[in-house]
């Protein structure tokens, strides 16, 4: 009888999908260490995946929020590009300082979130259409701000960009045998903070719980006395704010402005959320899963390139296969629910 208590049946959908995601990620990573060795045995490889994907983690958190309420936001990539370009132009051509550029990034993100959220929640327009328009708008605006890509030379900014947070005890000797400390960039710290805050928000606050209620079944949510419109509005505002933070973290990572920045980032964010167990239909999802979803995608890329499957499209294919797999898993989970 005791065994039955541990059976997967007792897990909620959210937790079951989360468990699958985490298990798959660890299997994959341990597999990479065992079968590929090389760089994977060094913790810095993992931290490099984190460094490269810190912004994506933040963007994906935002996406998970709107997806849990049953919406979608495909403007985040465009907003990220716009933020990088605006901050880059501001810092280099107008002699701006870093903290103002951060405020500017948050402002741009929030503005997109509020505007799109208003249209989606109160005027009841399809979120896909609104945010698609938002994406085109942001991308277009980026090229208007400046067409040429360039690296930011602002001293205070480059200093911040090169700031490294040493992870104690995780270093490894390099090819010459000199011990090199493991490090993460500042963006990773921000990303992890965002994951923790958003996780707590969704789990323990009344507003966070109402996200699930609205996404699960918004009629019932309405009957429960939840302000559905306001909840959806807030989800978009939060997503916009996170796009602002993510955009700045992205900018901090690449240190340049370009209209081609973060191309397809919104799709990566959606894919990460789905792999992390968030359902496109809404009502199911977990920020921790999203975090592992991003890491899984990043790890696939590393495995593919270090396995000698050297063409870029290989990582695209493996990602697509993984995404399909998780969609299948999700529908199986849903079928299980109906049977029960």
């Amino acid at each position: 009888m005791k065994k039955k208590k541990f059976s997967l049946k007792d897990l909620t959908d959210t937790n079951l999908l989360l468990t699958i995601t985490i298990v798959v990620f660890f299997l994959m990573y341990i597999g990479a260490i065992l079968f590929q060795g090389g760089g994977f045995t060094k913790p810095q490889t993992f931290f490099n995946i984190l460094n490269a994907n810190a912004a994506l983690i933040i963007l994906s958190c935002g996406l998970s929020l709107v997806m849990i309420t049953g919406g979608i936001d495909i403007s985040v990539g465009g907003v990220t590009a716009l933020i990088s370009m605006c901050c880059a132009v501001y810092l280099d051509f107008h002699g701006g300082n870093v903290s103002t550029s951060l405020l500017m990034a948050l402002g741009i993100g929030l503005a997109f979130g509020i505007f799109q959220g208003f249209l989606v929640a109160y005027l009841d327009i399809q979120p896909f259409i609104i945010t698609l328009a938002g994406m085109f708008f942001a991308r277009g605006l980026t090229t208007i701000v400046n067409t040429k890509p360039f690296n930011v030379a602002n001293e205070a900014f480059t200093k911040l960009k090169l700031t490294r947070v040493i992870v104690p005890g995780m270093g490894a000797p390099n090819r010459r045998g000199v011990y090199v400390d493991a490090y993460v960039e500042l963006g990773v710290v921000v990303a992890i903070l965002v994951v923790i805050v958003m996780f707590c928000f969704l789990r323990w606050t009344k507003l966070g719980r109402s996200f699930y209620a609205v996404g699960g079944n918004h009629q019932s949510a309405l009957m429960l006395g939840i302000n559905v419109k306001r909840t959806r509005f807030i989800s978009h505002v939060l997503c916009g704010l996170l796009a602002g933070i993510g955009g700045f973290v992205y900018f901090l990572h690449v240190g340049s402005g370009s209209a081609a920045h973060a191309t397809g980032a919104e799709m990566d964010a959606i894919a990460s959320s789905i792999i992390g167990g968030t359902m496109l239909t809404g009502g199911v999802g977990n920020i921790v899963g999203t975090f592992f979803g991003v890491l899984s995608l990043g790890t696939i890329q590393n495995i593919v390139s270090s396995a000698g499957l050297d063409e870029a499209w290989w990582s695209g294919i493996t990602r697509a296969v993984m995404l399909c797999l998780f969609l299948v898993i999700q529908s199986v989970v849903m079928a299980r629910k109906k049977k029960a």
Partner: protein
Amino acid sequence: MKRYSGIFVVVLLACAAGGWMFFGCVPDEKAPSQDTMQDEEDYIVIGLSQIGSESDWRNANTGSFRSEFTAENGYYLLFEDAQQKQENQLKAVRDLILQEVDYIILDPIVETGWDTVLMEAKDAGIPVILVDRQIVVEDEDLYTCWVGSDFREEGRRAGQWLADYLESQGRREEQIRIVTLQGTLDSSAQIGRTMGFQDVLSAHGNWEMLERRSGEFTQAKGQEVMRDLLQSHKEIDVLISENDNMTFGAIEAIESAGRTCGPDGDIIVISFDAVRTAIQFMQEGKINADFECNPLLGPKVSKIIEELEAGERVEKIQYIEEQYFDTSMDLEKILEERTY
């Protein structure tokens, strides 16, 4: 029991996902494993960070490295496709350092922003060989050498070829009116080719440069600019076009204006790059001479690596040998040997 079948399928799929990810990605038995520590004595491990696969030139360039650094030649090549993004290249180089490759070949997408990562490579004792494009760093010792095309020499040779050709035609003393279709302004190919031709131009008093305009290296723009040039200048004897794509456009413009070009026509056409299609145009008698921009850098880089392995010092800047083609040659045979 039926209730559990769903769960069983989920677990199975998860295992399949994990399993497929690493079993599927392990290179086949014949290829050396990624563990460079084990194979260090047998193979020289090369990490190549390529810009992307945006043009035939780039693909021929990648193909050249791939056919040179094979297991038969004692190499193992790790290829990283940056898909046109510097941040991907930075991460690729860091991953290659962690994998403890013996050499890194870097085709830098932009000129700036390489100092930190090259310092990391230097600290790890990994020589970095730059190919194709050049970089701006504070300390030139951060990279071992650069291999690529001498664009100025290409331009100079084009001018020299024109002088010889005119002489053979008995037009040495004649007034020669020249127009130039320039590449994207400020690109190294444009600057080099324009300056190189200028060197020869200024030595010939009877040559007159009517106009230089940018066709941005594209066929459409080349056609448009050539049409304008034909309208504003009644007499044009020579067209210098700084790449083949613009030449193709210009030929269309010349023909639709009712003019002729090539050895039997009234406009002498000199082009750069010498891709296959251009040689075919030459066969049809529409291009007089074409100066190669050689993408086959593999053999040269492999020679440099042999020298470095032998402990020799290498030249900091190394130009690749480049040839030219004109209608006096056996174009049939050239086409057969041409790989790009």
